[in-house]
């Protein structure tokens, strides 16, 4: 690597040190925190109960499909004396999407909270239901909760719980930070440099445009790799302070981290592509942000509960990078991770290639 290239990389790292440093610190702390919370939750009765269900394979089973009769029974009023008037046994996880063995993709549990007792017609007395204990209610909620977030593959190991806590119960920060980093670095690569006026100073030196852009790309990728490292390090260091029942392997912790930085890389690829066409930073920022939000909304729409697979609802999900984000599956098995990472890296690479193509051909406007 030439001295000029290393100098460019060094400069970019210096410029981004605060944002990257804060992001790494936050990810490290949250990863540690997830281990801490895991160690606390493992002492709870509902966790023990749900774990036993997982060991028995009950978590992996799809929720039993209600027969037509059962549905009719639920719809029609039942008297207290009717032997068929069974209390509505509502499981929070009953609305889980069925795990279809014919399909490759894992499905997250859907609409765990949407299954609810059928309302009785007005004026009719509800049949008496056996009272659930507080403990049973908590277990039911925990099961549905874990199943919703972890899907049928969740094995309730310490690492799986920690992964769930990290990516889903920290206000989405470990997902947002790689996305923010990607948008920030992508727009900085070309558009911000032109807007700032420093592009002239750099490219009047014997530095090729490709080298300039690749220096930005390498810095961004390096930042993402650091994120993977700190997430794993946070968990392992946290483990030395807070004991958990089963020590997660580093490679298993790294897999969901790779999945999330893969999201970030894809976002970065798209942003740098827009940046290569532009002369002001705010526009690629805006376009990339809108695109990211649109993909998130598309993903949410596609994963509404109880939608048929051929429904138009599913279409937006096909174009969303978030459809490749399965951190818990990545932790537990990682079976789909290569395919998901392939798609995400493919988006990243396509964006970088277009950015290189455009940047090498465009005029660089004079400072104003």
């Amino acid at each position, binding site marked *: 690597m030439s001295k000029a290239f290393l100098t460019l990389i060094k*400069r970019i790292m210096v410029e981004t040190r605060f944002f990257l440093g804060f992001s790494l610190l936050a990810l490290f702390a949250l990863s540690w925190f997830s281990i801490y919370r895991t160690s606390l939750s493992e002492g709870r009765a509902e966790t023990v109960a749900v774990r036993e269900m997982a060991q028995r394979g009950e978590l992996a089973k799809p929720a039993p499909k209600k027969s037509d009769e059962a549905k009719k029974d639920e719809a029609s009023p039942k008297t207290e004396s009717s032997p068929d008037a069974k209390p509505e046994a509502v499981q929070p996880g009953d609305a889980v999407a069925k795990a279809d063995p014919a399909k490759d993709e894992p499905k997250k549990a859907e609409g765990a909270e949407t299954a609810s007792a059928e309302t009785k017609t007005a004026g009719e007395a509800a049949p008496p239901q056996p009272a659930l204990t507080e403990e049973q209610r908590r277990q039911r909620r925990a099961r549905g909760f874990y199943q919703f977030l972890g899907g049928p593959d969740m094995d309730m190991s310490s690492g799986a719980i920690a992964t769930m806590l990290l990516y889903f119960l920290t206000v989405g920060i470990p997902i947002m930070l790689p996305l923010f980093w990607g948008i920030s670095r992508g727009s900085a690569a070309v558009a911000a440099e032109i807007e700032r006026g420093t592009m*002239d100073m750099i490219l009047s030196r014997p530095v090729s445009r490709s080298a300039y852009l690749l220096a930005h790309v390498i810095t961004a990728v390096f930042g993402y790799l650091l994120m993977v490292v700190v997430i794993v390090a946070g968990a392992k260091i946290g483990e030395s302070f807070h004991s958990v029942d089963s020590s997660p392997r580093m490679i298993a912790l790294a897999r969901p981290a790779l999945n999330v930085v893969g999201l970030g890389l894809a976002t970065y690829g798209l942003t740098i592509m827009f940046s290569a066409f532009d002369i002001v930073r705010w526009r690629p920022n805006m376009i990339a942000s809108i695109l990211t939000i649109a993909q998130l909304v598309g993903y949410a729409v596609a994963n509404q509960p109880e939608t048929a697979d051929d429904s138009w609802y599913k279409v937006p999900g096909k174009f969303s990078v978030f459809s490749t984000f399965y951190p818990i599956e990545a932790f537990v098995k990682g079976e789909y991770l290569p395919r998901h990472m392939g798609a995400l890296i493919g988006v990243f690479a396509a964006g970088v290639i277009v950015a290189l193509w455009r940047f090498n051909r465009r*005029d660089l406007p004079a400072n104003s």
Partner: protein
Amino acid sequence: MESIIVTHQLTKKYGDFYALRNLSLEIHRGEVFGLLGPNGSGKTTTIRTILGMIRATEGYASVAGLDCWNDSLMVRERVSYLPGELRMFGYLSGYQHLKFLCELRGGTGLERAVHIAESIMELDLNRKVRRYSTGMKQKLALAQAFADPVEILILDEPTSALDPSARGLVLDLVMTAKAQGQTVIFSGHVLSEVERISDRVAIMRRGQLMHVEDMHSRRCARMVLARFDDEPPHEFPDDLGLIVRRRDGREILFEHQGEIRSLLDWFSRQGISEIAIGTEDLRGLYDKFHGPDVRDEELAPVLEYAKP
């Protein structure tokens, strides 16, 4: 003389607007070449095309035989550039800024840049660039440009934002660069500066080359204003080297090149009531192309560069 920079029918069009039109120019190795013209005349576009920052719509530009767009990297190895609108990395100190730019050229020239910045420009290189005044930033950039071990210096308005003494320093540095064999392209608005140091000057207007003046010849030329007692003759002896620039009744303004003694001798035999001899500054030439009353249709751009 060997040409180091050549442009041929260089044209840059943005939609229907011509930023450059049919610019054909040759800049010789080792000369100081001045580029004159008002804002929007195409000076910066020409420079940026040479540096490979802009791709020409038609025509070509080459530096030392290298195509300015396709071989831009090799061109920039030979060129040091001072942009007209300067922007720097404010968070770096002066020294760090010099070091950064030197490292982009493989690490060469740092010592010389520091020497120029500290000893000649009298800058405090420990201070952050954002704490520099505009003139100090200009000086820092100049120190960088003059320190680069390159064949060609391109200085776009190098004396803007500088105080008079600093301007003089810059002009001295240009002459030193020339003495060391470097070719300097000097683009500016201050006619006296361009006139003082340039070997040749190109005057541009609306993206076209209007005129290239040899400043050596210009410095040798004299302007003679003579008032005759009677009606002055219509023709003058060829061997006197006189060119009539303006007639105003009995007053004639001549341009003269050649032996002054024979001219004075001839004048002494004419009925002359007054005579004044001087040199014409660049202003007169510049005003021919950019004066307030000049109209485009009266001017003919230089389409093909004619070697002397």
